[in-house]
């Protein structure tokens, strides 16, 4: 790619122009990250009076801690559930909208709205909808004989946070899937129709494989979202409960560190999360750059 090169007189101007960004990154990202790494090697007593260096003890403890291992599996279930739900609903909506001609833009606008809503607001919204005594859904479920209560049932609570988290992400996935669908030439679908493939078969043998790059990209984005960007939703709905059933890794960092004041352990958890983000980013770069499948 040809890009236009600017040359600046002197040496200080480029640095001065970069400085604000560098300073912000240093203060809000690098420094806290360094602090977390440093803290993860320390243990502090509850009053913050005495700090001792404990090496990797915080990490070792974590992996012996049943609550942490539980949180790992909760996070896995939550991330997979959210990703699957939001992506499949988004794909369904996108293929439906893609078939429309006149009303396409209206539907697209409507479907994108949820994305503009803050996670906490989305959480509160779902908190109301699913509220065991005043919510609409428990009321309907009650009529078919299901007693919904996410305050006592871990499964219900998990469903609730998955719904709330997935709902918010549908818009984003929808836009990408729609763009992906629109980039598939119509003549391919027509050729497949002439080749005797039913609409269902056309979707699974032509459209879906051609969407692989989009699907893969969205999968990574959604997992990252579910793991790191859903604090607000969980905080506003279940607060990690009942009995740790929705206590994801990110939420646990918060509750252990800020509520439980176990800073060393909380920092160690942050460092693990950081490692996960880095790993996911590498996966994304390696495979997306290389264009999955074809």
């Amino acid at each position, binding site marked *: 790619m040809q890009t236009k090169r600017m040359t600046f007189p002197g040496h200080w101007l480029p640095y001065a122009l970069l400085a604000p960004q560098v300073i912000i990154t240093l203060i809000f990202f690098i420094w806290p990250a360094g602090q977390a790494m440093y803290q993860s090697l320390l243990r502090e007593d509850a009053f913050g009076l005495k700090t001792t260096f404990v090496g990797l003890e915080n990490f070792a403890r974590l992996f012996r801690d049943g609550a942490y291992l539980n949180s790992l599996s909760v996070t896995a279930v939550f991330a997979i559930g959210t990703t699957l739900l939001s992506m499949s609903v988004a794909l369904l909506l996108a293929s439906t909208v893609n078939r429309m001609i006149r009303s396409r833009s209206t539907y697209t606008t409507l479907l994108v709205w949820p994305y503009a809503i803050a996670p906490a607001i989305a959480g509160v919204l779902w908190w109301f909808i699913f509220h065991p005594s005043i919510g609409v859904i428990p009321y309907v479920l009650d009529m078919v004989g299901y007693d919904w209560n996410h305050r006592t049932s871990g499964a219900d609570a998990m469903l609730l946070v998955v719904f709330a988290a997935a709902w918010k992400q549908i818009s984003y996935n929808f836009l990408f899937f729609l763009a992906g669908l629109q980039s598939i030439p119509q003549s*391919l679908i027509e050729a*497949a129709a*002439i080749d005797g493939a039913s609409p269902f078969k056309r979707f699974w043998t*032509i459209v879906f494989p*051609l969407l692989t790059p989009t699907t893969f990209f969205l999968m990574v984005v959604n997992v990252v979202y579910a793991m790191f960007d859903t604090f607000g939703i969980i905080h506003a709905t279940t607060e990690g409960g009942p009995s740790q059933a929705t206590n994801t890794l990110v939420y646990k960092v918060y509750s252990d560190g800020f509520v439980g004041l176990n800073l060393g352990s909380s920092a160690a958890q942050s460092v693990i999360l950081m490692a996960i983000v880095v790993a996911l980013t590498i996966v994304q770069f390696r495979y997306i750059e290389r264009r999955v499948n074809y």
Partner: protein
Amino acid sequence: MASITLEGLKKTYGGNVDAVKGIDLSIEDGEFVVLVGPSGCGKSTLLRMVAGLESITQGTLKIGDRVVNRLEPAERDIAMVFQNYALYPHMTVYNNLAYGLKNRKFNREQIEARVQTAARMLEITDFLQRKPRQLSGGQRQRVAMGRALVRDPAAFLLDEPLSNLDAKLRVQMRVEIKQLQRRLKTTSLYVTHDQLEAMTLGDRLVVLNGGQIEQVGTPMEIYARPASMFVAGFIGSPAMNMLPLDYLHVQGSGALLHDLPENTDTVGIRPDDMLLQAPDSPHFTVEATLVLFEAAGAESHLYVQLADSEQPTVIRTSGQPPVSEGDTLTLHIAREAIHPFNSASGKRTGG
């Protein structure tokens, strides 16, 4: 294999765009028919209606003796070659060819046998394990052809299949397609806007204009007796010269034009029929000035200005005649080279 019959076929888009305005045409079993016409005349639309990719607004479409108006594309037993080839990019060439067979529940051995036969026929055996993006344009074109013929359909529908190839490859593929069709004897409907393809490929040529048929006939019939001024201008390159009859009455000498059919007010003369040497047959002459000389190898194009006329006129001669720009030429036009037209109706006069 089957005949294709179109009866009063019409297509209206969105309630007011008449893309195809009533086409009657019957294509015999095994015949190769070429549809030609200017851009936007409804060629693709017509072909896609036959394929079942476009609904039929009005009229009847038969393949064999089945009315297929409401059948899905897959049930019509046709194969189509698209202008952009529409190869499945995520499948190997082998799977591109096999896809239609798999969907039709052929067993593994049958698929293998048919794909190999088609691949040999089109000389793509070496590429069977490649993906389309690893092929050149010409190879992709062959794969697209292979995908059409591997199923042994009742009819081939081809929409400008060669227009994405360079000139040389185009000639080569044109010849191959013609040979292939002769060998397989599959009824074919071929859309093009290329003069040469139109003239050379088909058993019959259908000239479309504005969603209607202007003329149907063998390419030579159409070339020799264009039924309208439109066809006369469209078929043949460079296009036929059109002159007002009155002009020839005044400027022409040795004129033998009083026996032209009634209502004739315009005459058409092909660029090759304006001769620099007098022929033996009855003829007349007009004076012209050479404006531009174009040597095109085996032939030359002479752009001339007829005396007292604004009409741009082209002459085609073989070789390179000893003339230079600015010369005054005497053009000899044989009586039988004249095509009589009526400019108001646009039709040929005298039947």
